[in-house]
């Protein structure tokens, strides 16, 4: 257990971020917090990818003299794309939340459901 925490703490952090994010998406009633949870979940995945790129003693993947070992650049590039996707999703989600707030005057999911069934 101690060994896991001292040598593989990146993976532990990735799992904690994912689990925490997923819990926020499911458990929280506030729509903005759900979106924050969604972002946390994605951040956990990003951390997992970046960790897998690490090579012990590796240098950043920019060709330089006297460097023999580089970390793998591909996961970084993939995550750069995934971050852009994540930002776009957050933007769309926040736009929808603004519209929901202007129509219902609340961000609580349970209150919105109540108002919808009353209609």
């Amino acid at each position: 257990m101690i060994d896991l925490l001292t040598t593989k703490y990146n993976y532990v952090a990735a799992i904690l971020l994912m689990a925490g994010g997923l819990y926020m998406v499911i458990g929280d009633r506030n729509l903005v917090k759900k979106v924050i949870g969604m972002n946390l979940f994605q951040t956990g995945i990003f951390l997992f990818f970046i960790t897998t790129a690490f090579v012990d003693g590796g240098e950043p993947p920019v060709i330089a003299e006297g460097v023999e070992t580089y970390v793998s650049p591909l996961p970084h590039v993939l995550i750069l794309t995934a971050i852009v996707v994540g930002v776009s999703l957050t933007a769309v989600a926040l736009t929808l939340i603004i519209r929901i707030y202007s129509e219902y005057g609340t961000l609580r999911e349970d209150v919105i459901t109540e108002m919808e069934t009353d209609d």
Partner: protein
Amino acid sequence: MTDAIVLAVVVPIFGAMISLIAGLRFERSGWTVAALTCLAQLGAALVILFTVVQDGKQRYELAGFSPPAGIELVADGISALVMLLVATVSLAVVVYARQAGPRGNAFYTLYLLLAGGLAGVTLTGDIFNMYVFLEITGLAAYALVASGDSTKSAVAGLKYLILGTIGASLFLLGVGYAYVATGTLNMVDLSEQLAAAGYSSRLVLGAFGLLVTGLLVKVALFPVHTWQPGAYSNAPDSVSVYISALVSTVAAYAVARVLYTVFTPDYRNEFVEKFDDVGGVLADMDGHIETRLLANVGDENDMFISSRWEAKEDAMEFFSGDAFRETVDWGRDVLDDRPRHVFLA
């Protein structure tokens, strides 16, 4: 005419840009742009289908980087048909939307982005590229659902967005697992490398579970279907028609791709069946005593063929024959260069 493969994806995305820019000057130009773009996409889909029917599977290397390092688009029998379905429904819904609305260029911009994303999911041969196109499809679909007039449509759109994003993120995590296990992202290459990594490996099984679960959220399979009723009933009519006809369908196609192209664990049975045929032929040969197929208990893909002959000459005659060489070549293809030859006297 393999260029049609890339055009089927790129044309709608450019059409979306043109629709957006043209909207600054001509307010009602969106429909014309969308109709022309969908017509061009249908043309590309037809060309792809005819080429595939005539010449078989077609590949297109993007930017000239050859796979597995580069990304490729692939059109085979299934994807060419799904592509034709996407293009046909896109054009039909545009025709319907002229009467039913919604009007305005913003709608048609999103619509064309969705069409481009669906074409991308259908034709891509790279698993990470599939994630990106799934998200393009998703983003356009979330915004289209929320473009309905009713107050509920924004709530339905947000629900769809949150569930869809969780699904796509699980898919991304599965891509990560598969990449860690194999070091490649190309689907065809992945199928070989995953078989080499072994289907009993936890990493490979984890990748399988995450990829399929992520896609099933997009397919809206029970019990991860809860986004679907709200999204369909609160979206504008044209959008309901389009996303119910295509978005889940293309996601289901993606599941089939992952199940049949990427994960291919039934090669072993194929090999064992083939071996039975070969065994039948061997039994009739001169000087043959018996031949058996033995499997390693620890790794069932690790197999050993033992063959007993009356005399060395009889065996050598068989080993130098054409039939034996053909069988070995076939075995190499199927088992990814695994057969090893050990001759025991």
